[in-house]
């Protein structure tokens, strides 16, 4: 295992230094040791940069997202772009949209804004709701815990995609769609985080240092803030890193179904949606958003996996198939002792913080 070897090697040099490295620095060092995660991080940084600089990039190209260029599409064949690869030229770097002739490069860079903003916003909302409700359930009395846990269960098990569709359909059209998407995804998919936080709080509550804080006269919220929250950072960050790509996919999926971001606002999912009617005539138009989405989600997934390994090196990588997975295989197969069927059904035998996998893969649009 290269990560550990690396940490060990670096630990050797550290022994000379007097102060032990802080938690954040240690995590960063472990993350740095994973090449795949770093590559993922670099791709993410690039996309964020593109999204931030979208107006600049479009200005350099000299195009915008909404202007029609009727002269660049072949009206005789129904609007297929003229020229190779969907009309690539010096003034239209990635070609134009079939039918309308809108510039694809501008639409793609602006589209990355929508995809990233919606995903980030939804993730922040999910984390806030999840941590708050998980803390309340873990710290509250039996009644509160029971109530919140039932509500959480409903949110974890319900078909989120269907609810998202229904919610998106009933909100008036005037409401800004990206904000709406953010809210819908955020409000529907916080259950996993709440479950993990609650389980973690229940474990922590029984530890001596937390009890000592309570005995020292701290109220529950002071204890939560000073003793519990720092210990929750690692699992919550891990889970959030996994939620992000699944939110990107959800936004794309809903926009793909035609109920997310609507034209003329560009988003990758929306472009894919209109591209799916053009794939017979103009394959470049399909490939661009598809490849971009694929690369982004892949980068986020690899990066999230690296973050997870860096925060908790005892757990082998989720994506690595080596022998490190033995222990988890045991949990999956439920081969130790008797297991309740509910636990088996949810694929989660122990509410172990290290296993956010089963719940996390349930993206809202996970088919």
């Amino acid at each position: 295992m290269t990560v550990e070897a690396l940490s060990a090697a670096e630990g050797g040099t550290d022994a000379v230094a007097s102060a032990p490295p802080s938690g954040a620095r240690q995590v960063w060092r472990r993350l740095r040791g994973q090449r795949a995660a770093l590559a993922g991080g670099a791709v993410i940084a690039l996309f964020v940069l593109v999204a931030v600089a979208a107006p600049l990039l479009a200005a350099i190209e000299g195009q915008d997202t909404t202007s029609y260029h009727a002269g660049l599409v072949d009206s005789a064949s129904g609007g297929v772009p003229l020229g190779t690869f969907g009309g690539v030229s010096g003034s239209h770097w990635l070609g134009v949209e079939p039918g309308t002739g809108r510039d694809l490069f501008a639409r793609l860079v602006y589209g990355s804004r929508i995809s990233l903003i919606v995903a980030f916003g939804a993730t922040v909302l999910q984390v806030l709701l999840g941590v708050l409700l998980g803390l309340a359930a873990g710290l509250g009395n039996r009644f509160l815990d029971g109530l919140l846990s039932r509500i959480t269960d409903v949110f974890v098990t319900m078909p989120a995609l269907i609810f998202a569709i229904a919610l998106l359909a009933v909100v008036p059209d005037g409401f800004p769609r990206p904000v709406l998407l953010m809210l819908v995804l955020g409000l529907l998919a916080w259950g996993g985080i709440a479950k993990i936080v609650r389980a973690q709080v229940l474990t922590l509550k029984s530890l001596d240092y937390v009890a000592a804080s309570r005995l020292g006269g701290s109220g529950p919220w002071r204890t939560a803030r000073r003793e519990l929250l720092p210990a929750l950072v690692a699992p919550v960050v891990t889970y959030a890193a996994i939620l992000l790509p699944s939110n990107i996919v959800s936004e794309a999926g809903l926009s793909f179904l035609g109920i997310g971001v609507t034209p003329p606002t560009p988003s990758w999912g929306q472009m894919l949606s209109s591209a799916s009617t053009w794939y017979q005539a103009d394959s470049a138009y399909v490939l661009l958003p598809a490849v971009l989405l694929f690369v982004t989600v892949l980068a986020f997934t690899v990066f999230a996996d690296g973050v997870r390994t860096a925060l908790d090196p005892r757990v082998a990588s989720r994506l690595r198939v080596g022998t490190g997975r033995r222990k988890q295989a045991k949990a999956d197969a439920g081969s130790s002792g008797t297991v309740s069927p509910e636990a088996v059904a949810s694929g989660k035998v122990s509410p172990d913080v290290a296993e956010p996998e089963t719940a996390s893969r349930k993206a809202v649009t996970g088919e």
Partner: protein
Amino acid sequence: MTRFLLRRLFQAAVVLVVLAAVLYACFYLAPGDAARLACGPKCNTAQITQIRGQMGLDDPVYVQFWHFLSGIVAGHDYSTGTDVLHCPAPCLGQSYRTGELVTTMIGQKLPATASLAFGAMVLWLVIGVGTGLLSALRRGTVTERLLTGFTLVGTATPVFITGILLLLVFCSWLQWLPYPSYVPLTEDPQQWAWNLLLAWLALALVEAAKYARLTRSSMLETLAEDHIRTFRAYGVGERAIVVRHALRGALTPVIALSALDLGTMFGGALLTETLFNIPGLGQQLVQSVQIKDVPVVVGIVLVMGLAVVVANAVADVLYAVADRRVVLA
């Protein structure tokens, strides 16, 4: 066992009623007039008022909801002004748009959804379990790397991207397959399979990665158990150990998981059905939501929810049958 099933059934009923109530409330609060939808664009105000009365839309929302619930148990009669339309016992109401019974509509859409779900399951089991077993039995860097890559790509690719790329490659570029249009199984089995092949593949590739991983870890776990060591010590051949003894234990979680996933698929592979133009429940749901045809939406969601709940229970029972250590309580 019976107690377990009864309890599960009760839980399921509660969840489904809550689901329906929430949906009803959502659409009730939403702008838009069902009577106008039912009547069409050419209606005048008087006609709309009349239709509102006939459809019971002037009742408070809880009365409407109660009529809906009692209709499921006892059936319902709708007056259409001149004659009466009888809706037999599991009555889910009638479409605002077409006036068709929701149960009839669901019955028409179900075969396509079922075709998609079962076909995809067969494929993902073959691909996933095959890859998983292969990499568990031939442990080496090459298979492990392949499986890692496969898992990574499967995790990161949403089904609509896999699907659209498959369409692009096989229909547009290579032209090996026709552009898919659904043909019912009863009409022409060969055309049915041919047209659905890419949709199955798109769903299966995404799912198979999960199954490959599960099969692999489960197989390795089983092979490491004591009873297998004992078989080895007795001199049982490696092939017999794997096929006759290890597979049973190793595939238990796989079977349970596929029951669950089949339920979810039945719950409508909305994206796949939309992309491949398969006239199933998912496609109908998306269309009905867009025109706010409440009875159809609620009916389809209930059927989908039922499928998921039933699949959950089946998975639990299968698990208990295959592994005696699991206790149903």
